[in-house]
């Protein structure tokens, strides 16, 4: 499908500078927007900054909600309260991101990802988290892990959990 040569016809040309590297913008870096102008659950992040791990619980029906919410998914009430969650949990299942990380996480691999059980006073709560401080090969189902707060350079915060090799689990290795 090559065009037929048309001879020395003058055409306009301009060279453009190569496009620079684009920094990963908000909403492609995975961390949620956290301030009061962006989200109704901004207290979660304020509490996290203070060292408290919290979520919403419905005052109308008593349901413990994860993730923190604006409206109860069980009874649709907006009368929610902030409650403290345990900062120690038990590993229910674990794996690692060895290959294929998303943008911004390339330098971190391999890292451990786990489902962790928190024994709250209302109901068992299982949540997904990254686990620092331990390799997947050193872990077992049932290991104990503790909350760790991550401070992002732009002022945002998030949580992970942290573990250590061979701490108490009796379950399956990787």
């Amino acid at each position, binding site marked *: 499908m090559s065009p037929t040569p048309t001879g020395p016809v003058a055409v306009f040309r301009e060279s453009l500078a190569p496009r620079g590297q684009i920094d990963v913008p908000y909403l*492609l870096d*995975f*961390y*949620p927007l956290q301030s009061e102008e962006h989200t109704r659950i901004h207290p979660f992040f304020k509490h996290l900054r203070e060292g408290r791990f919290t979520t919403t619980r419905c005052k109308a029906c008593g349901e413990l909600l*994860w*993730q923190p919410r604006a409206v109860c998914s069980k009874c649709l009430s907006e009368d929610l309260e902030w409650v403290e969650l345990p900062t120690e949990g038990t590993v*229910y*299942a*674990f*794996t*690692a*991101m*060895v*290959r*294929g*990380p*998303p*943008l*911004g*996480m*390339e330098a*971190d691999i391999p*890292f451990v*990802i*786990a*489902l962790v059980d928190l024994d709250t006073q209302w109901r068992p*709560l*299982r*949540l*997904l*988290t*990254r686990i620092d401080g331990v390799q*997947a090969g050193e872990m077992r*189902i049932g290991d104990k892990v503790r909350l760790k707060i991550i401070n992002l350079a732009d002022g945002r915060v*998030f949580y*992970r959990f942290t573990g250590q090799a061979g701490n108490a689990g009796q*379950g*399956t290795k*990787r």
Partner: protein
Amino acid sequence: MRQVAIVGGGHTKFGVRKATWKELVQEAGKATFASVRNLTPRMVDSLFVGAAEPERFAFQSHVAPLAAEQLGITPTRVLQRHELACASGQSAIRAAWMSIAMGLSDVAMVVGVEKMNIPNLPELQSSMACVLDREWDGVHGASAPPFFALCAQRHMHEYGTTREHLTEVRLKAGRFAATNPNAHFAKTFTKEQVEKSVEISPPLRLLDCSGITDGAAGLILTSAERAREFTDTPMYIHGTGQASQGHNLSNMESLTTWTPLKWAAKEAYRSAGIRSRDIDFAEVHDCFTISEIIVTEDLGFCEKGKGGAHIASGQTDIGGRPVVNTRGGLLGMGHPLGATGVSQAVEILWQFQKKVPPKRQVEGDLALAHNLSGSANAHSILIYGRRPK
């Protein structure tokens, strides 16, 4: 409600394609129109496009009219794009079925398409990770492989499923895919190749995972009354089911029994008026080796917890029943998200029409197609028959 028939299907080569999203749509359209008689693009009144992430992978939105333009279709009844991640293709088929069944559409086309191979792999992986709850699960680096790895670890822990069981799923996919020139990975593998492939998310290795694949497939649907205008060998939609529970991983009841799959299967069997043992062959969503094991169990093809042993014993291979994933599965075909459900339907149609190579030809009148999406929190099922219901 009118009974609905599928009268033709077309398929592109799946793989790392030197072709754009639009070109894949064009190829699938040409192949689909070639599979039927008496039909030109302008006679199609409705278009349903299954496309999971064109905004991310092809930086293109408003894709239903764009696809219609590529196909030469000028829809006058219904025009829709369907996004249900890995089940986008089946979602589009179900919508076309509804529209014809209620009399809104007469001749509908379904196209499933995904262009996934882009120059920057981490950018692709980010797009895959935001299929999960981006702010609470994806943020921890979780995407599909880690999620299904967690399921695999728990299934091994609870039921004694082994590395060898996972390997057997991949070996079977390879045997079938080797008969399929449209497959991304049209070849067999050895046990050693599977078990020594690079680690992705333990216990899952590269060959436990379906590929990052470009491809498209298409179907023509019409009412049962009109089916024979377009083909002598239509297939019919007998039943369907779909269900979802939770999205954030915290709100999933179990990693090893997929509750919404059991709900969807119950409704699909009920609406078709059949039981699981009536299914002759099936196309199920083996995005990872562990998925086929759990799906085989939760569809009722074997006892709970015995999926690995069931597959390893050859009962889902040629000669068993139901035979599962004759197309080569997602593992062998690759998994262009929006195309997969449509590709499965094309395989079932071609099985009924005796158009597949003899090595993978199966006999039977009833087939099931299953797709899961996201972290297995949504499941979609269609039941197809060689004869009218």
